[in-house]
């Protein structure tokens, strides 16, 4: 079970709340202070992307964020509930009216995440998409 689970209406004003909560839980879990900015930015990008997908897809379900403190790492999962064409190429390619939000911005968000986080995994299926990210905690690193 997640250490902290957050569900919020897919609205831009709540993304900041998700960032603050994620950073607070990460700090408590022992993520290095120097890395907290990255955690904050990465979770913000993931939530922004999920909000955009929900809004453009007309999905009323909340965006969910799972913050999990593990033995040597801290992990974050941000999930959307927008059905993605599972491994059938680009959504909408077959003529189906799948609305994607501003593809450029969406890609920039993912670019920031993959540039920031070493351990990241993006997956999507017919039920929705998930971005999983993790960071080592203090117990896993040797302090000088």
């Amino acid at each position, binding site marked *: 079970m997640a250490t902290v689970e957050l569900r919020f209406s897919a609205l831009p004003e709540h*993304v*900041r709340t998700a*960032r603050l909560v994620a950073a607070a839980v990460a700090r408590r879990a022992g993520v290095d202070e120097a890395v907290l900015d990255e955690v904050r930015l990465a979770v*913000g*990008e993931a939530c*922004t992307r999920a*909000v*955009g997908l929900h809004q453009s897809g007309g999905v009323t379900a909340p965006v969910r964020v799972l913050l999990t403190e593990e033995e040597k790492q801290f992990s974050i999962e941000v999930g959307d509930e927008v059905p993605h064409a599972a491994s059938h190429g680009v959504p909408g390619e077959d003529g189906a009216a799948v609305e994607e939000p501003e593809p450029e911005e969406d890609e*920039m968000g993912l670019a*920031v995440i993959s540039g920031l986080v070493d351990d990241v995994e993006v997956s999507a299926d017919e039920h929705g998409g998930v971005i999983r990210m993790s960071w080592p905690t203090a117990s896993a690193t040797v302090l000088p």
Partner: protein
Amino acid sequence: MDLSLSTRTVGDRTVVEVGGEIDVYTAPKLREQLVELVNDGNFHLVVDMEGVDFLDSTGLGVLVGGLKRVRAHEGSLRLVCNQERILKIFRITGLTKVFPIHTSVEEAVAATD
């Protein structure tokens, strides 16, 4: 924290001082400000980011949009930023090659190319 914006004119440049957090919620405010400035004929902008605490890809998108607008009028958009955590985002996305980034407003205002 919300976004704060103030503008002033220095010679033929318009300096936009931005403070607070630029994210998916606040970025539209910055976009409006940049669009308004360009519509009013201000084509040489300096965006001072020294008071920015947080910037995400939505904010980057707005800055790129501003750059496109001023370039359509043969203008310029320069940034002022010394904060490593903000500069890092520009580096990750390759935008350090797109925006001239200066260490002070004075330097940005004096820059010609």
